[in-house]
């Protein structure tokens, strides 16, 4: 069992399990799956109620989503026990080649350590990725009213037009970053 837990989880097991989260949350609490709204609740806790977006009982409405988010963090803590020291993701050779051209050399772990480290935060590419990128995640998901969980999974599984448009938007933005911004950022 322990040996099995050390292995990466294949997509055809992870995907269905992630999909089950949607009916599970409906059944255990009548809650519609979505994670980015947790950002709104945290803002509503501290920002003035004169803005309609923050004018609601954030604890009453948002407690479940904040608990879910905290749980996701705990899941990360737990999973870390089952990640071998020398973990390398089995990426496609074509992706490795493209990323190497873009200046990435360290493929150990889940993220490129040369980009995601505290010293790099002071560099222009590091700041752009970590701070501007993070800001766009929060601003964009709230503007669009959902992220990967709320739109791509919940919205598409319930056949909503809004979510199809949003997911197309996700890819427009993602492709611009991947093909035009990131290659110029590192070189």
């Amino acid at each position, binding site marked *: 069992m322990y040996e099995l*837990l050390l292995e*990466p989880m294949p*997509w*055809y097991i992870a*995907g*269905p399990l*992630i*999909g089950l989260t949607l009916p599970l*949350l*409906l059944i*255990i*609490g009548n809650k519609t799956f979505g994670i980015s709204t947790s950002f709104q609740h*945290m803002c509503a806790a501290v920002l003035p109620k004169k803005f*309609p*977006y923050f004018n609601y009982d954030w604890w009453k409405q948002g407690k479940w989503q904040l*608990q*879910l988010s905290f*749980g*996701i*963090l705990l899941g*990360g*803590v737990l*999973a*870390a026990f089952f990640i071998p020291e020398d973990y390398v*993701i089995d*990426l*496609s050779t074509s*992706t490795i080649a493209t990323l190497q051209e873009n200046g990435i050399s360290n493929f150990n772990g*889940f993220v*490129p350590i040369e*980009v*995601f480290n505290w010293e790099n935060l002071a560099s222009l590419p590091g700041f752009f*990725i*970590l701070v501007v990128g*993070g800001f*766009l*995640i*929060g*601003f*964009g*998901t*709230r*503007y*669009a*009213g*959902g*992220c990967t969980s709320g739109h*791509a*999974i919940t919205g*598409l599984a*319930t056949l909503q037009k*809004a979510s199809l448009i949003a*997911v197309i*938007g*996700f*890819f427009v*933005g993602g*492709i*611009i970053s991947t*093909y035009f911004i990131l290659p110029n950022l590192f070189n």
Partner: protein
Amino acid sequence: MRFILAGTVFGFILIKSEVVSWFRIQEMFLFDSIHMYGIIGSAIVVGLIGTMLIKKFNIKDTSGNEISIKLKDNSLTKRYIIGGSLFGLGWALVGACPGPLYALIGSGYLIFIVPLIAAIIGAGTYGMLQGKLPH
């Protein structure tokens, strides 16, 4: 407690399936592997079947209430195009969407506290500008 537990299982899967990986997100946007598409695609299919079964058999939640799915405002388009694209830009830069941000911090990549705080500030900025933005 049940939501913390559901989140824990979800976060564990996000890490073990490498969804949280910046490398995997680049691979997805480069269209080089089925990995991410397989995960999102099969999650949608299972979610679709699950919600259909709930409706078909009129399954109640654990407190015995009628289950209702909160729908998006399907009469709007601008917010989904603009907001969606802005999120997409950030998703590919950081290599993580909101769920993975939490999971990565938990798994020890503490640097992701920075994009998480930036995302919360981004959400707050949206909330303050909401009335002035096209929807």
